[in-house]
């Protein structure tokens, strides 16, 4: 198995995608990802010179502008009904500007 990613790389990705991991999990994830990426190698061995990419099965999509009309949407109550924490009709999160602070 080729080492595509190191444990340090995996720690960096975990931080970026906001998934907390223990050291044991980092070790196992590094093994799993290197194994999966090994299996992706055929994609790098193809001669793709001059081949245009297709990003979507339905080509030639363009943005459609709709009329600016008032439409029924969620009420505030409906928008909040699945919020784990709420206060005064708003989503509630830990303070990000006081002592707690985000990193």
């Amino acid at each position, binding site marked *: 198995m080729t080492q595509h990613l190191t444990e340090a790389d995996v720690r960096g990705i975990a931080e970026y995608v*906001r998934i*907390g991991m223990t050291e044991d999990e980092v070790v196992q994830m590094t093994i799993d990802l290197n194994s999966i990426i090994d299996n*992706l190698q055929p994609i790098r061995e193809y001669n793709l010179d001059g081949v245009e*990419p297709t990003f979507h099965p339905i080509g030639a999509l363009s943005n459609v502008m709709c009329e600016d009309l008032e439409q029924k949407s*969620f009420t505030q109550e409906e928008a909040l009904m*699945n919020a784990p924490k709420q206060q005064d009709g708003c989503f509630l999160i830990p303070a990000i500007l006081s002592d707690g602070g985000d990193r």
Partner: protein
Amino acid sequence: MMSSVGKSFGEMSIREIQAGLVSKEFSCEEMARSVLDRIERLDVKTHAFLETTGDMAMNAAAKVDAAIAADTFGELGPLAGVPIGYKDNMNLIGTHTTCSSNMLQDYVSPYTATCVNYTLRAGAIPIGKLNMDEFAFGSSTETSAFGPTCNPWDLGRVPGGSSGGSAAAVAAGLVPASLGSDTGGSIRQPAAFCGIIGIKPTYGVVSRYGIVAFGSSLDQVGPFARNVEDAALVLNAISGFDEFDCTSQHCDTDFTANLAEGVKGMRIGIVPAFMEAKGLTSEVRIKVQEAMQKLQDAEADLVEIELPNAAAAMSAYYVLGPCEAFSNLARFDSVRYGYCDPGHADLGSQYEASRAKGFGPEARRRIMLGSYLLSAGVYEQYYYPAQQVRTLITQDYNEAFGKVDCILTPVAPRTAFKFGEIADPSEMYLSDMFTISINIAGNGGMSVPIGLGADSGLPVGVQLIAPAFKDENMLRVAGALEQAYGAAPVAPDFACERSGD
């Protein structure tokens, strides 16, 4: 409860149910209650349902009964009185939509997905929500956070996945039809493992609005049923343009129109390289060859074709799928909805703990992989070439469909495997070796049951592949195969004489 045709409601076709309702042999409320009772009694074995929607079902049934009393049944729609189950990644207002994930364990839908809405508009009776691999990441339902679904043909085996609950519920005769979603084979492979019909229509035929997204350029919704006409009737109901999904297309095809036409003169492509693929078991190969022979006997022209870039589809898919999943799953922030780990003083640690505990191992792996593949310097090595490969695969199909009307291949390389039998993620990914390229190109594919494998005694399916927006071609071939093999039976242990109906 049994009807005069000697079948339980679980074994009846849509036409039989509707005929029984109209002739007042049974009421829709009686039927809905019987279906819910049967699920309560039998689904302890299969675990196909995560939630039943009894109140909704009874309300919908009462409306059908009122229409029959008023002699307006004909105005209700093509699925009037038909019990349907929905994969649990489909929003239905007031129900839990969990995606079989701890992340969404407590999530209650504030709205209804268009495909679900279209079935209700057509008069269907909503019966419940069906188990799946977590966020549709898997081929066995073993990654469901709420425990796997068992294959009705052998409870020690997987039903396939990710729409395993949708397939098992139909195979066990708990409902006549269900909806699933297919990103790399998630309708077709479980349909094959459970011995029923499963259709992944061309991308754009069915709206994706209200389906929890996995791979937005690959996902497509489709029906499961035990006979081709039922599947076509459900597809008729759910297809068509939706202003909430800009990729959905206007579609007024009647998918039932040519089911009885036969295949005389149809050109059906076969791919010799697929029949020699490493990993294809001999019992599946033999059954697929038999299906080819039956179509030839029905005067179809079998034409050898090549799909030279199909071998690259697997690696392209396992680049594109995780990349799209990574960006789709970024929305789970523990703030607006979804699992929130308690007791964190800062938002960063709340995010990290909530996403670590909310997502299962396969979801975490795919998010990590997608993030890596899209990172600077890596993107050019994998993601961009994968999209170039997509062009080649699409060209392969375009060229093939210049010569043939439909292509026939295996669905899965083998029949249903035992729980825990495939532990290596890379090996599990091979389950989808014949189905993946169709999602990448975007055209339609379906699984049709063709009897049992000689070695395992388990259902084998054959895959029919249609040109984009010519899904009726594969349905016509499916109709001919059904003529040869008969409609799919309910799994033996769930047939009415053995299950206590």
